[in-house]
Each structure stands twice: as structure tokens, then as C-alpha cells.
């Protein structure tokens, strides 16, 4: 049951003959994108979150065949030329990472949120709701929410900024 697919992964073109029975998660990991983690395998924990056409999906519940003609983003594509993305840097700055297993998925969800809400005033509630499909058992989420707030603040994203100054209702 093999089919040929063509897509882009982190802006690089990718063509392969894949088994239609495989999930996107399996295909990504088999091709070296092992930052994509399998947690629950049933779409509850979000550890396997990747962006398909910039929309977060659980890659464990997504047939690989469905990415034909689409663009995929994984954690591997977020840092460029040795520098972390703004979201990754904010996660470090706010202490949003502990064991790290949920982090690749969460960073992809945060990245989609930040890109969608750039320049807009957002609430903590919006951040929480958008991240509700990603479970983290270590951090208690506070650092993660602060990281997202930090990315959407008007301050210099590379500086240390107080989170209150960004029009966010707390």
C-alpha cells in the first residue's frame, strides 16, 4: 500500500514513497525529525504537534498521505543559522522547559499562536485556550504562558522584558 507524496518539510522539498498506513509522526521520525515526540498516540497530549500549512495538528492522528502538496514545520526548522527562534529563546528566558518532552510540540503551538497574533492585543485566556491541546506535566504552564506573552510584547524581543508592559490582561 505505497503511494508517492511530495511536500516541504521546514522549507526543504521532500518526496518519498510512503506506506499509506503510516502516520505523519512515523514518517517524520523515520526521516530524522526526531524532535517530534510520540506521547499518548491518540491526540490528547500534543507532544507530536507539527504545523501543516502553519496550522497545528497532532501528527500521531494525521495520515502521512494527507501532507501531499502541503508544507510541514517541525521543531528542527525553527532555529536558523545557530540562533533560536524568538519563541524558543523566550522559552529559555522564562524557564518554560523542564524535562523537555512536551517542549517541541508546545513550541510549535506557541509559534503558530505568536505568528497569528503578531501586533494584536491578546489575553492570558486566549493563550491558555490555544495551548489547551498540549500537556506539560513539569512546569505548571506558567513559564510557557509568560514566554508567549514575551514574544507578543512590544519590547525588544531579545531583551529581558517585564510581561506586564504588553497590553495583556492578567
Amino acid at each position, binding site marked *: 500500500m505505497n503511494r508517492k507524496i511530495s511536500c516541504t518539510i521546514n522549507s526543504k522539498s521532500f518526496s518519498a514513497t510512503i506506506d499509506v498506513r503510516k*502516520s505523519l509522526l512515523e514518517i517524520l521520525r523515520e526521516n530524522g525529525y526526531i524532535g517530534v515526540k510520540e506521547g499518548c498516540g491518540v491526540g490528547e497530549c500534543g507532544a507530536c504537534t507539527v504545523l501543516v500549512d502553519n496550522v497545528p495538528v497532532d501528527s500521531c492522528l494525521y495520515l502521512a498521505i494527507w501532507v501531499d502538496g502541503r508544507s510541514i514545520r517541525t521543531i528542527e526548522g525553527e532555529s536558523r543559522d545557530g540562533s533560536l527562534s524568538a519563541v524558543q529563546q523566550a522559552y529559555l528566558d522564562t524557564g518554560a522547559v523542564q524535562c523537555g518532552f512536551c517542549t517541541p510540540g508546545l513550541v510549535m503551538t506557541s509559534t503558530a499562536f505568536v505568528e497569528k497574533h503578531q501586533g494584536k492585543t491578546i489575553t492570558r485566556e486566549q493563550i491558555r485556550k490555544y495551548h489547551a491541546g498540549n500537556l506539560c506535566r513539569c512546569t505548571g504552564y506558567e513559564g510557557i504562558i509568560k514566554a508567549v506573552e514575551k514574544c507578543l510584547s512590544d519590547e525588544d524581543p531579545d531583551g529581558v522584558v517585564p510581561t506586564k508592559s504588553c497590553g495583556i490582561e492578567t
Partner: protein
Amino acid sequence: MFDIQSYHKANSVDEAISLLLQNPNSKPIAGGTDVLVRLRQGSPAYGHMVDIHDVADLKNIVQEPDGTIVVGSGATFTDLIASNIITATIPVLAQGAGWVGGPQVRNQATVGGNICNGAPSADSAAPLLVLNAVVELKGPQGIRRLPLHEFYQGPGRVDREQAEIMTALRIVPDDYQCWVASYHKYAMRDAMDIATIGCAAACLPQAKQVGKLRLAFTVAGPTPMRCWKTEEKARGAALDGSLIQLVGDSVLDDLRPRDSWRAPKDLRQQIIKTLAQRVLIQALQQTGVSLA
């Protein structure tokens, strides 16, 4: 790897129907958020699939010239929430859609799948029931339409023939124009949870009275259910506290909640009464009637 025995991708509704006809054991897969979970659990019922994930014709949400809202079965919950047509005309459906799973699931899961899956807990079902939604199916014999409440036949059972595709849910203007409606899901968590009880209420007020009332519940019986007796009793009632009392007193006669590991029957009964009243009050607030 999923235990898929046969796989065929359809690019149109007609192609899906002919593929389904070729294999009587085959089933459609749309968003996959139910089907792939079942397959992973080892259910043999979904091993032969006709993939309608990318059938573009099923994803449209349109308003016809007479005002009828046509929601394509392949629209995702994220599509419903983002649709200006839905939020402007039948916002209660967007409200229900917002309660489904989590964001990633809403980006994939379709409204047609939510209904065809037949779950008593489907978050889109209660809003669609109070909107009197009509299910449109296309099969080898052509197109047929039936009310959503008749489409549900039992737990996990709906009136879809093996080779039929649910193409759309249709809501006519008489079922939403001048109506107010609201939905609430009671669950243990605010996301990634199955409803303990879900309730939608809709009211067409007429001269400070109930012109028409519709109440629908999920997880309060073997299928999502309307509350026909209560709706009939409320016809013509004054829009005041007595209506809220009447609804609370009557609603359990329409429903059949049961014990499950999620919640005992008596807790469900308590939630049903409270939600019937609270959700109706919420809906009526949109007309400026405050009964809180």
C-alpha cells in the same frame, strides 16, 4: 502503523460513493480524529477506508439565496468557529464547536464526522438539534434529507447507509432568524474532555411569551436528544421565572441519563436540571430578558 487493510482516496463525493460500493466493509474517513483512535485501539471495523479528507466540495459553508445555511460535512470545527456566516447567523454552533477536544483536534475533526460517529456526547449535536438541522446524504440512489433527530438511531448508530456520504447539514431561516440560542458543556476539564452533560437551548420569543422553545442534551440518553414534552409544555408560557421553573421541573421526563464511570446518574440528573435553566436564561439574555 495503523492496521489498515485497504485504502482508497476519493477526490469527489461521487468517487467516494463508488469506492464505498466496491467494498461493503469500507467506511469513510474524514478528519480521522475518531477513526484513527479506534484503529489504534485495534477496532477491525475501520480497516477498510475510503479517504474523503481532501474532498473540497464537502468543506464549504454557504448561505443560499433563501437564507438557508449549508454547512459542508467536511468543515472542521476551526472552520466553523472562523466562519462569518456561522458566527453571524447561528453562533450557537460556533459555541459548540469551540468546546470540542483541543485546538489541534478542532483543526482536523469535522462536523460531519462528529455526527456520523453517533456518539451521545458529540459537542456539535446539541446546537444542531436546537437549530433543527437537516442531514443531507448522497448515495447510489441519489440525495436524501432527514431531520438530525431522526438520523440518530442509537449509541454509535446513525441512519447512514454503507455507501452514503453525509454531504451537509442544512438550517433553514425559520429555524434561526429571530431565535436566540446558547450552549454549555459541563465537563471535568475545560478542554480535551468528553461532556458529562451538554445542553443547548433555543427560543423564539413572541410578544413576551415563548413562541417556540427547543432544548437538546448530550450524554443524557443513548443519543443526543431533544426534549419534546418540555418544549410543548413551554409553548405560550410567559418569559418570566415560571418558565424557568417549568423547564427545570419537566426536563428529566424527556431524558434517560445513566450511570457511567464519568458520572453517576443522579449527578447527571442534577446537572441536567441546572443546565436546562441556566442555558435558557443565557439564551434569553440575548433578547434583553433577564431571568437570572
